[in-house]
């Protein structure tokens, strides 16, 4: 059994949706997480809002951002238990973020502290 991070890549929802739509996405997200939790596969969830964010560049310059204007920005991630990346990907399919064309869910195995990474 491994742990996988399911990383949500999408633009900032607050910029493109009404409060009512945000409410709907909120419920869908909670229901999706509840589904995984009901199967006893949920480990944790971490939202990453776009306000109060910074980008540090290779020249050590610090700027505000990312602002979530592109579909590749990370909006948050959850951690699940799964036997394989494929099983984890099945969980990821249920995320409401995927209703937006071009949005993606990235599935990454979490390294165990077994000395290899």
């Amino acid at each position: 059994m491994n742990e996988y991070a399911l990383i949500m890549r999408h633009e900032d929802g607050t910029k493109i949706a009404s409060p009512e739509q945000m409410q709907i996405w909120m419920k869908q997200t909670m229901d999706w997480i509840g589904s995984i939790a009901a199967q006893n596969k949920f480990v944790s969830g971490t939202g990453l809002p776009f306000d109060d964010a910074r980008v540090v560049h290779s020249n050590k310059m610090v700027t505000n951002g990312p602002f979530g204007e592109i579909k590749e920005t990370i909006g948050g991630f959850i951690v699940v238990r799964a036997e394989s990346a494929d099983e984890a990907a099945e969980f990821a399919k249920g995320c409401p973020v995927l209703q937006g064309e071009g949005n993606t869910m990235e599935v990454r195995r979490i390294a165990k502290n077994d000395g290899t990474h």
Partner: protein
Amino acid sequence: MEQQELIPHLFRSEYRKIVSVLCRRFGFDQMEIAEDIASETFLTAAQTWGFNGLPQNPVAWLYRVAQNKAKNYLQRDLTFETKVAPQVKNDFPEHYETEIDLSPQNISDSQLQMMFAICHPSIPPEAQVGLSLRILCGFGIDEIAEAFLSNKDTINKRLYRAREKLREEQIKIELPGPAEINKRLDAVLTTIYLLFTEGYYSVSQNQVLRQDLCFEAIRLCQMLADNEQTNTPPVNALLALMHFHASRFDARVNETGEIILYDDQDTSLWNADMILKGGYYLNRSAVGSTLSKYHLEASIAYWSTQQADTKEKWENILQLYNRYLQVAYSPVAALNRTYALAKANSKQEAIVEAEKLNLTDNQFYFALLGELYTGINNQKAKTNFQQALVIARTSADKKIIQKKVDGLD
């Protein structure tokens, strides 16, 4: 007639007070002696009151006799130490103080301290519950055996091992300091919750015993809520949740012991006073910044006191379960969440979710699938109910599932 009824009632409520004070005084090293003295006191009462009738003040009589028996024991013990073991120093340590303090304050303090000592993570959960029932609640070994659907030998062994472990670990009988108290409180609340669950969902057919277990759990939690050092938000939340659930006792079972499902219950039998109390404690728990699983469960239990089948109710319950399962998974919670999903979203969606749960050793899993398939695919509903029937243990459970099967024909 009156005398025979008075003693068992007294036994329960006074035994636990006396035994807590004595246990704390004698420590885990001599805990059996403390229990023996308490038991002997009631044995003497049963014998003496039978001949001489009830004393003017039965409680004071019991305390006096317990104090004397304890004093006698301690003095014999002291005599042994001073006469037979001459190495003892001249100044007697506080250990040899022979007066037993049975004031209300010391009784309450002792019970609280014993609660923390007994609900210790070093002994298994069933042992914590068993020891709590014996010492904190004054239950007899027979009653405990019946509650656990076990036998006297098993229970005696369990309690014996638990006391041994507590002795070995040298668990102190005291209220933990402020740094430790929240963590230790966790263990106490878990035991109280287990005790309540045992009564609420118990397979034992003894209705009176089951309600007793629930009320004991409530009483213990109440003690925590009444003490400044232990009056925390989770304690109040647990108290609220137990009141909400216990409010439906009279409506859950009919005179012949048959189970009455929630939707069929006569709400006039729901105890409005307990629901109000639950609301009061829920309010009291709504302070601070941590949301414990008890808060979530209490909120769900609150919605259970509103019988009206509204979308709002079920959407709230669903979201509460969504959050609850993130912090505390249990098969029961997963099944309840799926039921709420059916009500809030749709049966079809819930069927898909239910099949993912795959709790094939659980009768309620198949009963849920049966419920969900009813009206959508009655053949599948029947198969699922029949599978539930195979796994169900009590006759009451089997009866109600059979009713569902018959309803589909």
